[in-house]
């Protein structure tokens, strides 16, 4: 199983949805998309073994991947959408302020941009208290973290996404969901997974500010400009909530989630050995709420 399938607790969420032991999710017979992008759904350095199915979030990604020569690409929807289905919002939540996700790079990439200018813009735009959520890399960079703290923002990190089967963090998405549901708005300087996650979790989204660029950023798929042209309605300080939600449903495949039985079949999780009950995360997740 590819180690990226465990990123952000994704395989854990899906194992739980399938009624399996989410403390130690079984191997997924395929590659699972772990972040929103405008390529084939996978990281540029992802290595593909012929014949291994690609499980992507949305129909749009599937079509694009096919056009890029990928085969055996199947839409299963984003783990995030499964998490929301398992944990629907109950009652009227007390939402306040904005959770802001400054654009991050991946491991080994560094963002080039002016955090100071971005902070000013956030202050001018956001009406309520602001929580800034940093990627673990930036959170650990004191300089960057302090920058936001000094601005009076609450600075958090959802955790480490995990890598190479180590330091996996099954609670990552649960923490993110809890945070999103505390906030009225979700914002970022780029249209990204977090904005779609927030829109699906009931936040009013916004995309504005210096998008910053990655050191040596490649834009094989058209990059920022392509995203702006494709989704102009999802850029701005105020975005129509219904349009954003519709886009989130599309991009996260939330309208085409599989039943647990079907997902088990697709991932080859039908082996009864995996059925040891979803216990572990239940206990910890309750504590994380």
């Amino acid at each position: 199983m590819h180690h990226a399938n465990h990123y952000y607790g994704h395989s854990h969420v899906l194992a739980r949805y399938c009624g399996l032991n989410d403390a130690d999710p079984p191997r997924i017979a395929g590659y699972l998309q772990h972040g929103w992008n405008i390529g084939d759904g996978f990281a540029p350095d992802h290595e593909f073994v012929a014949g291994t199915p690609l499980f992507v979030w949305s129909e749009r990604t599937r079509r694009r991947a096919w056009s890029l020569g990928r085969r055996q690409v199947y839409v299963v929807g984003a783990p995030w959408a499964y998490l929301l289905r398992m944990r629907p919002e109950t009652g009227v939540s007390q939402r306040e302020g904005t959770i802001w996700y400054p654009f991050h790079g991946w491991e080994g990439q560094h963002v080039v941009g002016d955090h100071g200018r971005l902070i000013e813009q956030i202050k001018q735009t956001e009406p309520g208290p602001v929580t800034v959520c940093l990627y673990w890399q930036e959170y650990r960079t004191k300089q960057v973290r302090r920058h936001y703290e000094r601005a009076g923002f609450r600075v958090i990190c959802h955790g480490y996404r995990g890598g190479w089967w180590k330091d996996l963090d099954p609670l990552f998405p649960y923490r993110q969901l809890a945070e999103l549901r505390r906030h009225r708005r979700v914002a970022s300087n780029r249209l990204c997974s977090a904005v779609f996650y927030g829109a699906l979790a009931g936040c009013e989204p916004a995309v504005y500010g210096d998008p910053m660029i990655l050191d040596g950023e490649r834009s094989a798929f058209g990059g920022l400009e392509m995203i702006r042209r494709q989704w102009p309605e999802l850029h701005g300080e105020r975005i129509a909530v219904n349009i954003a939600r519709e886009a989130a449903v599309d991009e996260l495949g939330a309208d085409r989630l599989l039943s647990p039985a079907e997902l088990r079949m697709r991932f080859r999780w039908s082996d009864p050995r995996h059925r040891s009950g979803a216990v572990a995360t239940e206990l910890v997740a309750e504590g994380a709420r």
Partner: protein
Amino acid sequence: MRPRLIGGEMLLWSDLDGIRGPAPVGGTALPRLLSAVTGRTLVVGPHEPSLVDAIPTGDVTVLVRGLADAEALSARYAQRPGRSVWCGSLEKLAATPAYDTVVALDGFGRVFSAETVDLSWQDTLNLLLAVLRPQGRLLLGMENLAGLHRLVVLPREPGDGEWTTADEYDDTRPAGASQLRHRLERAGLDVIGHYAAFPAPGTPTALFGGDILTDPRVGGFLAATVGSAGSPAGPVLADAGRLASRVARHGLAAELAPGWVVVARRPSDGPAEPTPEAVVAGGAEVHEVHRDAAGRWIRRAVDTGEAETLPLGPTLEDRLLSASLRHDLPTLRGLLMSWQAGPAAGVPADRIVAGDGERWHALAPAQEPAAALRRFAATVIEGGLSYLWPAPADEIELTSLIAAMAGRQFDAAQLAATVPQATRPDVQAVRELTMTRDRLLRELAEARAEREWYEQALTARETALKRAHRLNAVLSATVPGRAAIGALRMVRGSGRFLRATVRRRDPGRQP
């Protein structure tokens, strides 16, 4: 009764036994047309005896070329007055208009014997018309030399009956369904029934008239009927049943039908008696289709007279495949669920007409739902569409997956043991075989690539494990290391104790 020998008879020949050439024309749809035959009748060429039996009129002459056939028919009709059997070649027949009806459903290919010259198609027609009375009727069958069954046929050696095979280059032979009609009209006949015959010219089980073929609403019924009508026996280039459905879907059923059947008559003052728009035989049941006064298609059982409107819309299989090819998963799941939750769960998808907003209509009896699902899985694999599902093209696995999409769960082992294979083993089609070979080659290459990846992954994990073992060994040789290992064991022991306690307190909980 002895057969009357008219000249040109073949003493050592039989067409009826089907050994040295195709079997005589038969099929379960034709008796319905013959049941309307009236007056003095001549049957020319080899016909399945049951067809001749279906002619209700009291005066029937059968002309065959093989003596063995003539004798067999004579014996059959020994006790039946009004039936006579002649043996010989068609051109020996006296050209006097003596018959009210001439039946030549086998076509013109087997009316001349090896003793005579073969005549062209037009000359043969003229011979038949010469014996037809002024208001007489002609029931004629003709093989379509560019029909589906011919397009999928593999080359073969000519048989004993093919001492000449010049039909293909007979320029008097009508090319296509509409030319056949025009040729008969030019010969002074009114065409009152014109049918495309499936699945084979010699054994039609479905006859479709021109109006019904051009009505797009009937497409599903048409595709279901011609698709299930069967495929020629033996090796072929492609599965003719699948092609027939496709041809029907694209409005080419009339032109690419394996054969045509025409009912024509000499001009007459009287009103033309109505001929059915279609005749469809499935199993023991024969249905005819006609239009009612309101223009609706009505399907009526020939035996019982039970009538209902013809189901309109596409087949469920077409809708499922269409949704699959569009990758419209919500629609696909919705259709599968409706199918498997409804009364037609056990009816194969290609035998259900599933019009949008219409009541779904089963054209076949229900079997086990698992068998119907398995058949759909086989259709997907045979159609080269298995790439739409993330399972190897294995009937059982795909059936289980489609069942899961339909909200059903089957145990794969049980499925394999209880539901027979749905892939039709009798269809040996080069296209399907090539497709299967290519797929297996690809799956083999993929399995090799996967194995290689597992090798690499295993090596990496083994290296990591060795490193951990070495570290362990080094640590356990030091005092703090031993202390840490001791502490770890204690923690593990208390963990086991805690779990055991929890289990004792809550025995209902899963381990």
